[in-house]
């Protein structure tokens, strides 16, 4: 975990004071609604369908047990006893009072947390692989680089009134778990031939109305140049990004209009001025930030200790959970654990205050006090001793956080949708639940293999439906909620935008359609072939034919 120093603390403390003063002026009628709106948004406060919604930043999805307990406290004290973990690795509270938000921020500041730039047309929370610092396929730990970007982008004077929101993701592993190909800027951190950290820079990816896969504009950027290069990209975007139409204001539209080569030339010309300037990272600063990530004191342990293998042999349910929700670790004798927030009947990503407190306790007892949030909306204990997995599983089972469905169809991503969000065209949570109920047999789910099913309640695509192996999009047709279904999307290294199968369906039809898609996959798949590979091989035509064949649908 990154530990704040006095400057980091002062920064969040000052922001609390400032936001308290802005809220006071608004409530006193000294600050107009339309002017307060972007100010509260830059602090993560939306006015939603039923109540305000506060989005709290969880930088690159990384939490300490102490911070998670504070989130539980906020859920209990200021909200209705739960929070919603989002696809940007943040948490949202659905029921805070606008008047109490400054107090919530003050509480957050006591545990080195904030809501700075969690909305608005500015650089948002930087996201990363949830297994950073733990996964065996890692080239570079993304977190210190994310933290350097977080500091540089916080209250940036030039880039706080951009044409539109701006999202940066950093991946440092072989498998891209950070969806860097669909971000405004995606960074692949790797090591060059000398072992030095370099970045491949991708720009112009994004979802929303116009889904686009990012273009690589720079390969092998030496790490000391990271911030000046980002500044060059941001300046070109700030100056030339469209501001006349909010649906054409993201950087992806600019990159497309200039062409990736044209955009790169502009960035390189700008960077020629900024390169080697004062914002260039120094070896001391890079080392300082790395050092402030206090590394857990890993013990010397043996892999697969007897206590684990015995439990695996004796308890089939534990073995199932272990096979799906436990991830390999860099350190012998350790593992990373997925605590599923995808139990059927609970909105995906939701956790209660009691569950958050429990997870914090387990993190302290078994996991070096660390917790992560995934963009798939689950919680992770990144550093668990394998010898403790069985007792952890038992505790997680009692708190209903041990659903053994990680990576399966049921581990679906889902935005809050029309139940909460004022932007939504349709509800998404009931769709998620209906699909989870239909596919409630774990053995069947395991047989189907890894399938990512993503649901968004509107074109803004918070549920990442474009990059789901199966994507579901809520649409409005003359006041009625309908659902458009697409397949073949992928958010990882071979990123792809899912293709729409055809006309949309009524809510009640959706589970049947998903089942038809799955049945056809099972009929067509070759030995060991995953759903996404099968769709890539056959194309979408056979799926189209299957689901639109019967006359009572479509």
């Amino acid at each position, binding site marked *: 975990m990154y*530990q704040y*120093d*006095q*400057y980091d603390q*002062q*920064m969040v403390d*000052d*922001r609390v004071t*400032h936001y308290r003063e*802005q809220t006071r002026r608004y409530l006193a009628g*000294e*600050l107009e609604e339309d*002017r307060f709106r*972007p*100010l509260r948004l830059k602090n993560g406060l939306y006015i939603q369908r039923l109540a305000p919604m506060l989005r709290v930043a969880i930088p690159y999805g990384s939490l300490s047990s102490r911070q998670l307990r504070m989130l539980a406290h906020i859920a209990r004290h200021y909200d209705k006893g739960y929070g919603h973990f989002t696809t940007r690795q943040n948490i949202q509270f659905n029921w805070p009072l606008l008047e109490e938000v400054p107090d919530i921020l003050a509480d957050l500041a006591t545990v080195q947390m904030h809501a700075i730039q969690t909305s608005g*047309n500015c650089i948002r929370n930087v996201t990363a692989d949830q297994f950073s610092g733990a996964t065996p396929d890692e080239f570079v730990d993304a977190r210190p680089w994310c933290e350097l970007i977080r*500091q*540089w982008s*916080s*209250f*940036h*004077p*030039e*880039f*706080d*009134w*951009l044409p539109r929101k701006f999202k940066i993701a950093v991946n440092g592993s072989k498998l891209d778990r950070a969806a860097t190909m669909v971000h405004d800027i995606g960074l692949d951190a790797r090591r060059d031939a000398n072992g030095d950290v370099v970045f491949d820079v991708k720009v112009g990816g994004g979802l929303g109305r116009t889904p686009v896969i990012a273009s690589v504009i720079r390969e092998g950027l030496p790490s000391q140049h990271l*911030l000046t290069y980002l500044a060059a990209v941001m*300046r070109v975007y*700030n*100056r030339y990004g469209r*501001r006349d139409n909010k649906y054409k204001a993201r950087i992806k539209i600019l990159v497309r209009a200039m062409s990736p080569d044209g955009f790169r030339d502009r960035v390189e010309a700008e960077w020629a*001025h900024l390169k080697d300037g*004062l*914002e260039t*990272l*120094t070896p*001391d*600063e890079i080392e*300082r930030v790395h*050092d*402030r990530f*206090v590394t857990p004191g890993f013990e010397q342990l043996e892999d697969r200790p007897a206590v684990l293998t015995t439990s695996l042999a004796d308890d089939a349910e534990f073995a199932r959970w272990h096979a799906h929700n436990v991830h390999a670790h860099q350190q012998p004798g350790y593992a990373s654990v997925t605590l599923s927030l995808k139990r059927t009947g609970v909105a995906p990503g939701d956790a209660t205050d009691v569950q958050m407190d429990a997870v914090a306790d387990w993190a302290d007892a078994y996991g070096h006090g660390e917790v992560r949030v995934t963009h798939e909306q689950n919680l992770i204990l990144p550093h668990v001793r394998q010898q403790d997995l069985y007792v952890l599983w038992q505790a997680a089972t009692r708190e209903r956080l041990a659903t053994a469905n990680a990576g399966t169809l049921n581990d679906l991503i889902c935005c809050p949708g029309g139940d909460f969000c004022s932007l939504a065209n349709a509800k998404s949570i009931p769709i998620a639940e209906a699909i989870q109920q239909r596919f409630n047999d774990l053995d069947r789910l395991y047989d189907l293999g890894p399938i990512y099913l993503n649901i968004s309640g509107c074109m803004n695509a918070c549920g990442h439906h474009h990059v789901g192996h199966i994507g579901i999009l809520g649409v409005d047709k003359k006041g009625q909620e309908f659902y458009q279904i697409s397949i073949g999307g992928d958010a990882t290294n071979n990123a792809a935008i899912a293709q729409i199968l055809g006309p949309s369906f009524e809510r009640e039809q959706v589970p049947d359609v998903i089942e038809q898609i799955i049945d056809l996959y099972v009929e067509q798949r070759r030995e060991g072939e995953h759903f996404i590979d099968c769709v890539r091989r056959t194309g979408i035509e056979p799926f189209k034919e299957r689901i639109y064949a019967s006359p009572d649908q479509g």
Partner: protein
Amino acid sequence: MPRLIKGESLIDDNWTWIEAKDAGLADLPAGNVIVPLALWLAERDTLLARGNACGVWLDSDEEAEALADDVSRLAVIGLHFPAFADGRNLSNAVLLRTRFDFTGELRALGDVARDQLSYMRRCGIDAFQIPAGRNPEHEVAGLTVMRDYYQGDVIEPRPLFRRAPRAEAG
């Protein structure tokens, strides 16, 4: 009441902002004027010969580069913010100060209000023309809202990590 914040004070303004972008020489009042870029580019020599100090303003879709060769001849460059959420002229401000070394007055025009002032100031803007309907004595409080920042800016080009004794791992 004075409507111009200069530095950290309210002062009387002795410049006239020529807001109409199609203004011609005949439209200019006596005294110091801040003219639109198009007029400046068309009538530079005539404007310089008027005997007053010269000012030009850039709209948010105009580029600082257009004034790159003129900065030494200008006393004021105005930067127009048509809406408070339009940040393009923040980049122009930074470029005029850091790339073209403009040392005269950089003045924010248009929808200028308290909660943008600290950002504008850090981008090198040192004068703020507060529009009618706002109380400049209240707005001036927006110049300073935080004690420090991470990244460098026009006022303090060094980022925090180059000037602060930041703590070692604790």
